[in-house]
């Protein structure tokens, strides 16, 4: 089962898949991808026992770029999919990759309950405070007054704070 970690010391590069990374040039997501690969290589974990589950949005392309098991699921539901994976096989290292829209808007309920259940999964929330994939509408973390395509006179909603939500759960 743990062939990887038992036999070889993996490098950051070993955690990369053969897929072209398709985020916009200059996007901060590149830095997160590179850092996650680097960190995993220092943890002594194996590729085959690692599962990345994502929802929908720019951030959620993440699993395609990892040479682990991956599931690019549907909008907002990654924490629930990850719950199923983890309950089915608690030996797996399960990661959720999500964004501010995915986790805090459409998937707010699942985000709260995944944290409440405390299943020993990791959630990476890429908070860029905007809807990137759908090209620029305000998100639940956009600041009050943020002008976007869907809020030409400024957002009328106050942002919520992901860590406060997490602690509150």
């Amino acid at each position, binding site marked *: *089962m743990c*062939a*990887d970690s038992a036999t070889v010391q993996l490098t950051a590069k070993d955690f990369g*898949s053969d*897929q072209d990374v398709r985020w916009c040039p200059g996007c901060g997501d590149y830095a997160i991808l590179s850092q996650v690969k680097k960190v995993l290589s220092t943890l002594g974990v*194996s*590729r*085959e*026992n690692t*599962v990345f*589950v*994502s929802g929908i949005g720019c951030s959620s392309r993440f*699993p*395609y770029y*990892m*040479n*682990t*098991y*991956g*599931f*690019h*699921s*549907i909008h907002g*539901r990654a*924490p*629930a*999919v*990850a*719950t*199923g*994976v*983890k*309950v*089915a*096989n608690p*030996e*797996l290292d399960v990661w959720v990759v999500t964004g501010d829209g995915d986790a805090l808007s459409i998937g707010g*309920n*699942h985000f*709260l*309950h995944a944290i409440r259940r405390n299943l020993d999964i990791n959630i990476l929330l890429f908070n860029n405070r905007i809807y990137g994939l759908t090209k620029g509408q305000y998100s639940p973390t956009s600041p009050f007054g943020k002008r976007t395509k869907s809020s030409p006179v400024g957002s009328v909603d106050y942002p919520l704070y992901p860590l406060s939500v997490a602690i509150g759960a």
Partner: protein
Amino acid sequence: MVVKTQTENSGQRQVEVVGLESTVVRFCGDSGDGMQLAGTQLTNTSAIFGNDVSTLPDFPAEIRAPIGTLAGVSGFQLAFGSKKLRTPGDQVDVLIAMNPAALKANIADLDGDGALIVNEDAFTKGNLSKAGYENNPLETGELDKYRVFRIPVDKLNTEACKDTELTGRAVGRCKNFFALGVVYWLYGRPMEPTLDWINSKFGSKPAVAEANTKTLKAGYYYGETTEIFTVKYTIAPAKIEAGRYRKLTGNEAMALGLIAAAKIAKKPLFYGTYPITPASDILHELARHKNYDVSTFQAEDEIAAMASVVGAAFAGVFAATGTSGPGIALKAEAIGLGIMAELPMVIVNVQRGGPSTGLPTKTEQADLAQALWGRNGESPMCVLAPQSPGDCFNIAIEAFRIAVEFMTPVMVLSDGYLANGAEPWKIPDVASLPTITVTHPAANSDFQPYRRDEKLTRPWAIPGTAGLQHRIGGLEKEDITGDVCYDPNNHEHMIKTRRKKIDNIADFIAPLEVFGEDSGDLLLLGWGGTFGSITAAVEKAQSEGLSVSSAHLRHLDPMPKNTGEVLSRFKKVLIPELNMGQLLPIIRGRYLVDAVGFNKVQGKPFMINEIMSKIKEMLGK
């Protein structure tokens, strides 16, 4: 049907004993009166006695509607007999009404020769008015055509419980067992099964156990010693196939079937769900069986439940969910993900009256179209339907067999009637159950996520397997590699392949069987929970010499390969459904037969006579 008549000594007197082939009893009262419990006890006792039984619980969606009102009436009907019973019966032979509202809501179903037992203490001015009676129907003569037995149940129950520690309302809650005791005497049922149940259920509450015991016996002895009844009935055990039987509801059978399927395949079972009427009992049953390697997950909502099932299937276990129509609506997107990811899972829809919240506790078959087409895009899925409570066990195994062999979600369309209805179920020999073989690609093997076998099934490679790391998801995939792919021709190829894969299932299912002659004037084609009513009606028509047969679809997508051929052998085709006609246009369109629909959407099952009348109308008789 009367089998024989004799007399016996009852207490100090002689009563006539009439032997019957079968009978239909209905308990009805307030939703807090314990009618479901009384009905269940009579069911269990009759099953243990060896009768065939068929039940129809009918209760309001409100937990406690205002006491004494029509909205709060709860009923439990059961048929038991010495012959095979296909339905809980059209007409009631003995109606037990605990208050005026229950009488008003149920009297129309009492047979003209039927017996009515009423709790006369409940016929107070207030209760009569709540039920909408201006005058007491016990006094007006309107019930004269029935044999009416007025029993002061409240007073007698209170008297029976007076030496126990129970007081006030707790005493009132025992009165269902007084009524049950009367019925036990009337049908010569043994009290022991219920006495045993009382002792195990209320072992920690001796006062409650004592009161229920006393009032049950008081009811029984009341029947025996008072001269109110001059007749009692006997019903001989049914001549059924030898074996060990237990009483099983459809929901219990479904739960046991899911467990059995996982056990056969040597897999853990994961059940992710959100509570909803009438499906929750599947969760309750499964939650009791963790010892069989069952994990139940009560999710935060319907969507999360479905998503967790997709995740669990990806991780390599037998994953299932259960819900009702509104839940399926919420789950649709995640079911589509299961179809796109081509993972095995079972989705049980215990249908109820719709649309929207509809009639949560009533039965309907109006989710067939939703099951077949209720998702975005071309998203074909295998759809099955059990035909009796016990068949829910078989269909759950069949669903997992297909799910795993074809790597596809499978939807099972149960309904409220099957889910809550009970019948004696022969405990199967484990060796006789179908086999389900699961294979996962080995570590570091030559693997492509969407490389298919001859049935078009893709491999089920699970996390934890070295060297087979792969990524899947809801985006369209390239054939073979599974990489994200936007190529137009690849998309069309994948759409057609997913459909063809479901069609291929037809090569691995049982053919459609005909009940009766292979050809003739009329074929009744049904699906799901209407099996009992349709078969009973067809049996009756056949016994009257009519050229009528029936066939019942357990597989709705794909349908058995001989379906069109069966239809073609009959001059006319009638499709009875508890909806506005959802199978009908499929059959007409696909097989070009001039089938006619027979539809009912009252939240209630078909009565045998309703179908019988339609058969005669179709045949011009």
